[in-house]
């Protein structure tokens, strides 16, 4: 437990403005020179219910939510109007306190809204405060907000008090509020902020040992989520058409894109279902636009049919899959990595696709751009697979990550001159001709002179006409399937691999993971190596084509490896074994699927439990033995 970081948690009810308040505060911390990582926890309800946002801020790079937290701002759950002792969800009114105390670090700070929360209702509150040496500030935030008109502004009062305690200058917060708030509510908010700040400064002892470290950014940072990374990556690649159906957590990408596309001359369509959404993206792409769609588990299941259609008609298509806990509706607002196999194998027949699983916001941007490039150059579906945690969590990313070159190149499209010179079959352009190169047959676009052909979901010949000829079938299948090899070669030759290796190359022990577990794993590796272990980690992003060579050489000399993933059946481990055909006796699994992401100590405990039994696996995690080859 260190004091060189602030992990601030704001807890309350959904609809209390927790999200917008925390966004502003996170930005304030970033503008003060700190690196920031946010984590959003919320129930599948519109209003009420326990929710919190955690902001971790430090001088050093922050890669995960960290272990536990050290500052709680507990606001009342204003929407639990009818508290009942026997209610199914329990007494929600005091949840902002009761639900959060377990993870508050020793010596931590609690601000609670005494206008709404009564600690007498928590039987052991005082004992716990004493035992943990917590510093408690009981402030009537609601009372203060009410004085200025609206209860909801108790958020601002909480921020003012927080700043007083952690020693953050109000200027930054005031500036952000001035930019973000409409004039009507700005003035009372500013007054509440200052009054709350002054009140705490004057009347309380703020020397509690939790302060913000001094820091400065080397490069100008921005605070974005994985969803922003994907949306901005898509738009920089010239994506100007999106079709979707709302579903948590994919909705984040959909709404970000929808907000901006019309201004960029693009089109967004909210449609009747996910089958339609993916089919629209195919239609727009077929007609010559860069298009995407996406969904989460259940919605993506509906897209399995159009996904295959894009593949056989060789229509470029980019889909996003933001995983949440399944099966079926599962836990809509909780992260999981249980859709990996669903995304790898969904759709009928031997199917072929590119799948990237970015590990953080920066990778979301970079890999989405690459996914578009490959989809359009190779006329193949590309899928960006990520999860609820990466969808909504914000992190500081240097602005320089964002490539300054937009790429509207639509890939392998013929010119009308090419068409004129090209061969024809039954009067139609040979759009699916075999050229023996990388499996890609350049396409014509509807409206191009002389280029008409049939794009058929049935097996077809070179002009697109339905064909069940055995030789044609084999040729077309082989050509389509060969694209993945060409893509694998292209990825291998890239300057920078999408896979991230962390720790000492010669380490004895390895951790393998994919997607949003990246940050927690890297922090765990640091902790383990500081404790004298010899551990390295690889975060794999290329799910298909799978980087066999890189993974093989990474695992070559280690004694054993722990595959860390958020699902119950070790899907990623199965994928590694299936793709490499090796390592069956070396790969152990650490699994977590309780709806919460891995924290670094979960991984440290799992590692130590597996290696020498010196620890128990953390609560709700499970170790699974190697299966053998």
């Amino acid at each position, binding site marked *: 437990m260190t004091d060189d970081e602030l992990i601030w948690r704001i807890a309350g009810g959904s609809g209390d403005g927790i999200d917008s308040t925390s966004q502003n505060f996170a*930005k304030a911390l*970033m*503008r003060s020179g700190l690196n920031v990582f946010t984590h959003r926890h919320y129930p599948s309800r519109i209003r009420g219910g326990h929710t919190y946002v955690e902001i971790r801020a430090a001088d050093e790079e922050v890669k995960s939510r960290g272990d536990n937290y050290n500052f709680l701002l507990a606001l009342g759950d204003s929407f639990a109007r009818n508290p009942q002792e026997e209610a199914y969800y329990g007494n929600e009114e005091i949840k902002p306190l009761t639900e959060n105390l377990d993870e508050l670090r020793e010596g931590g700070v609690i601000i609670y809204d005494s206008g709404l929360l009564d600690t007498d209702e928590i039987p052991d509150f005082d004992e716990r405060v004493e035992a943990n040496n917590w510093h408690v500030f009981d402030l009537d935030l609601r009372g203060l907000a009410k004085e200025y008109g609206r209860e909801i502004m108790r958020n601002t009062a909480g921020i003012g008090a927080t700043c007083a305690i952690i020693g953050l200058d109000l200027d930054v917060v005031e500036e952000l509020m001035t930019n973000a708030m409409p004039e009507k509510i700005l003035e009372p908010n500013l007054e509440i902020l200052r009054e709350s700040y002054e009140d705490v400064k004057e009347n309380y002892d703020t020397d509690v040992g939790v302060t913000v470290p001094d820091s400065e950014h080397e490069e*100008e940072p*921005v*605070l*974005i989520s994985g969803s*922003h990374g994907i949306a*901005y990556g898509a738009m*920089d690649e*010239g994506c*100007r*058409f999106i*079709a979707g159906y709302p579903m948590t957590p994919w909705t984040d990408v959909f709404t970000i894109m929808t907000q*901006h596309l019309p201004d*960029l*001359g693009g*089109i967004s*369509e909210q*449609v*009747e279902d996910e*089958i*339609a959404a993916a*089919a*629209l993206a195919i*239609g*727009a*792409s077929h*007609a*010559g*636009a860069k*298009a995407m769609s996406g969904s989460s588990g259940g919605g993506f299941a509906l897209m399995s*049919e*159009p996904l295959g*259609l894009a593949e056989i008609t060789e229509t470029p298509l980019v889909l996003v899959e933001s995983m949440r806990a399944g099966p079926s509706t599962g836990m809509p607002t909780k992260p999981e990595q249980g859709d990996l196999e669903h995304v790898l194998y969904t759709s009928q027949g031997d199917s072929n696709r590119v799948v990237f699983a970015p590990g953080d916001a920066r990778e979301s941007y970079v890999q989405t751009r690459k996914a578009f490039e490959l989809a359009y150059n190779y006329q193949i579906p590309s899928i960006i697979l990520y999860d609820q945690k990466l969808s909504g969590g914000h992190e500081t990313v240097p*602005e320089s990550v*964002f*490539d300054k070159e*937009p790429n*509207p*190149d*639509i890939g392998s499209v013929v010119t009308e001159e090419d068409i004129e010179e090209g061969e024809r079959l*039954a*009067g*139609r352009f040979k759009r699916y001709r075999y050229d023996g190169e990388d499996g890609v047959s350049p396409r014509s*676009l*509807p*409206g*191009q*002179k002389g*280029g*008409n*052909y*049939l*794009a*058929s*979901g049935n097996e077809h010949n070179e002009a*697109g*006409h*339905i064909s069940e000829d055995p030789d044609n079938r084999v040729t077309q299948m082989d050509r389509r399937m060969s694209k993945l090899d060409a893509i694998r070669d292209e990825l291998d030759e890239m300057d920078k691999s999408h896979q991230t290796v962390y720790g000492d190359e010669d380490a004895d022990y390895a951790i393998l993971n994919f997607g949003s577990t990246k940050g927690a794993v890297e922090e765990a590796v640091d902790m383990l190596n500081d404790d004298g272990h010899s551990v390295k980690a690889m975060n794999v992003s290329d799910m298909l084509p799978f980087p066999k060579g890189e993974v093989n050489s990474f695992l070559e000399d280690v004694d054993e490896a722990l595959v860390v993933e958020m699902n119950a059946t070790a899907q990623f481990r199965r994928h590694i074994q299936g793709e490499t055909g090796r390592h069956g006796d070396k790969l152990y699994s650490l699994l977590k699927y309780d709806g919460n992401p891995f924290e670094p100590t979960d991984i440290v405990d799992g590692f130590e439990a597996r290696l020498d039994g010196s620890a128990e696996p953390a609560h709700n995690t499970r170790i699974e033995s190697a299966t053998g080859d």
Partner: protein
Amino acid sequence: MSVFNAIDEERDIDVNEFTPSLEPQATWCPGCGDFGVLKALKQAMPEVGRTPDETLLVTGIGCSGKLSSYFQSYGFHSIHGRSLPVARAAKLANPDLEVIAAGGDGDGYGIGGNHFMHTARENHDMTYIVFDNEIFGLTKGQTSPTSPKGHKSKTQPHGSAKSPIRPLSLALTSGASYVARTAAVNPNQAKEILAEAMAHDGFAHVDFLTQCPTWNKDAKQYVPYIDVQDSDDYDFDVRDRREAAEAMHEAEDALYEGKVLTGRFYIDDERPSYQQEKQATGDMPETPLAERYFDDDYEWERSYDLLDRHK
């Protein structure tokens, strides 16, 4: 200069241009009503003035889905019931294209029913031809959404307990701005209606009665037909929604009593198409999106300009 030169072309168009130079052997059964759709569609094209290269025909699955194989134009043979979402996005991406979608009664009113309702509601500027033969043909004769109540088949051995879909009424209430019914046995009317539907600026739904001589044995079921426009007995205003609804009800009831009413049932040429509505709200570019990728002078706006809000 546009990459889509076919669209800029203005010339006389010959009906034969829509026949592939080496015509694929149609796999439809002898006497199939689908031949009537193909012929009527080809004949309507010169009247609409669109070339094969500026026409995109999107079909579903089944016998009707093969239309795109025998009709020379840009074609997209999609999946069962999904021709409409593919077609409407192609139209949004490139509104200069002539976009036609086609499918069968199972395809259009069954599995694709949701898309039908919503495409009509949005009033996309396109033509939707539904081959309506009251049977699933290619899967060998199962009861379809338009099969009459009591219809016996391998999937409804005791006779269907379901009332048939009312496609004209469904199109009208969903919001289609042009609704007509025609029949393969009436080639002249079919050609006229298809030409009119394509010229219509909005969603034009044509319920096209096609006989299935193999699975719906009574291949002559749609003869004789009555053209509601030619008969004094059916005097209603096709531009009046209520009168149109009434006429559709009559036509839909009469069909299963052996009286086949065809013709235009509803025309609303005032209602703006979806594209126009969307342009009015600022949600859609004036110039075709698809062209932008080939316009060397186009200044691509960059999303990282949006990063300012994240600082």
